[in-house]
């Protein structure tokens, strides 16, 4: 059981280049999330999805787009990379509906370390 898998693990881009980060989960979770992690700022939500075909903006969505064409996959796109997007990107998923049970737990992938020069 792989859980949440992110590809690639590392990437270096030049300013203005585009790329797509892929997140795949095999737990049949409804909810998926993209976060970025920067030193001293914790995890900030970029976009999220509450089910196949849905996406919504999080706390820091500018410069990113997402798609969830299949339930198990959540793609994060950078159309024109900027140095400010240098960060570690984490994907997470949860079974979650409302409430406070185990479905509320978020499971994270190993992360993608992105540098934009």
């Amino acid at each position: 059981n792989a859980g949440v898998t992110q590809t690639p693990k590392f990437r270096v881009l030049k300013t203005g280049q585009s790329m797509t980060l892929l997140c795949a989960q095999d737990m049949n979770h409804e909810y998926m999330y993209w976060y970025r992690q920067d030193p001293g700022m914790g995890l900030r939500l970029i976009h999220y999805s509450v089910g196949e075909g849905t996406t919504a903006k999080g706390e820091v969505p500018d410069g990113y787009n997402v798609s969830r064409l299949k339930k198990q996959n959540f793609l994060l796109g950078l159309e024109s990379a900027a140095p400010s997007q240098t960060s570690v990107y984490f994907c997470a998923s949860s079974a979650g509906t409302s409430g406070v049970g185990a479905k509320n737990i978020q499971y994270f992938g190993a992360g993608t370390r992105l540098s934009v020069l």
Partner: protein
Amino acid sequence: GQQVMQIPQYQHVQEGEDFTTYCNSSTTLSNIQWYKQRPGGHPVFLIQLVKSGEVKKQKRLTFQFGEAKKNSSLHITATQTTDVGTYFCAARPPFYGGATNKLIFGTGTLLAVQP
């Protein structure tokens, strides 16, 4: 927007000493979760607190949720080198309730343990 403040940002202890990190919100929370991230790793769920005044223990770790459901703490007794990492609280305010299941993460506390 909604913020969850976590203190301290960094703590360096000798192995065997105790450690505590605090998480504070200006508004009442629906529940709070704690995650641990090892250096170079990804956040891993530790525990979830739901009830006012709730206390839960996991071996040497004690988690508390404040009576007003606005703050929480994680206390580690007799730290070990395996405790090294960043500890995050993650809060779910009531107005985020429903189907979104979004969490607001604190800035984290980095724990260093010297053998």
